[in-house]
């Protein structure tokens, strides 16, 4: 069973709830989706979206769009935002020291996903996240 879901919003902390709600809706309509897969995918999506909320510039002017595809073999998410280009190193998802208070988001997303990529095209940032279903 496949399914497509979309949501768009301003990149504000409160709008992360829309992503939770979208994923809950997808789970409700796909009872065959493993709770563990959904939980890890949701964790990664919220970290990537949280990164856009926190670091997206110009502050207060960024909007994002999220598209979810529930495929028989995988979960595929694409988060697109109109903020400035992401300057960080996507491959630097190293888990910081246990006593660090920040810097875990990208590392958590890497661990929770099977694929994570970033590209900048036509002034839009695209984050593509995938997790193979188990």
């Amino acid at each position: 069973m496949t399914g497509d879901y979309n949501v768009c919003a301003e990149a504000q902390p409160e709008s992360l709830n829309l992503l939770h709600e979208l994923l809950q809706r997808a789970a409700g309509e796909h009872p065959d989706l493993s709770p563990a897969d959904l939980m890890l995918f949701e964790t990664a999506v919220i970290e990537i979206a949280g990164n856009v909320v926190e670091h997206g510039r110009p502050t207060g002017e960024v909007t994002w769009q999220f598209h979810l595809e529930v495929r028989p073999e995988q979960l595929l998410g694409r988060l697109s935002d109109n903020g400035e280009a992401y300057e960080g190193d996507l491959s630097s998802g190293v888990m910081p020291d246990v006593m660090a208070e920040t810097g875990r988001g990208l590392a958590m997303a890497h661990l929770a996903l099977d694929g994570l990529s970033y590209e900048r095209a036509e002034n839009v940032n695209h984050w593509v996240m995938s997790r193979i279903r188990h």
Partner: protein
Amino acid sequence: MELEKTIVGNAAILSCSGRLNMVAAPKLRAMVDQTVADGHARIVVDLTDTSFVDSSGLGALIGGLKVTRQAGGDLRIAGAPEQVTTVLQLTNLDRVLKSHSTPADATRDW
């Protein structure tokens, strides 16, 4: 997320219900700071009704752990549901934030 504080003996129990995310994390952190400032440096964060935690929430827990320890106390967590437990393992934070089954269990040796 809703936060509720209860003082039990020499411990403060902070109960978080809902999502401990970038909206809620600063509120938890502020409550921990205020609780320590009020003289309660032994804190249990009860996560029984926490449906989701993100890296901001983890940061608030670690920040709270440091503040309580600097004041001679400790911060422990209780009742962590599966998503919280999984995220603690992913980030290796289960080494410093061991989850107790209940707040009463967490405060047993205080």
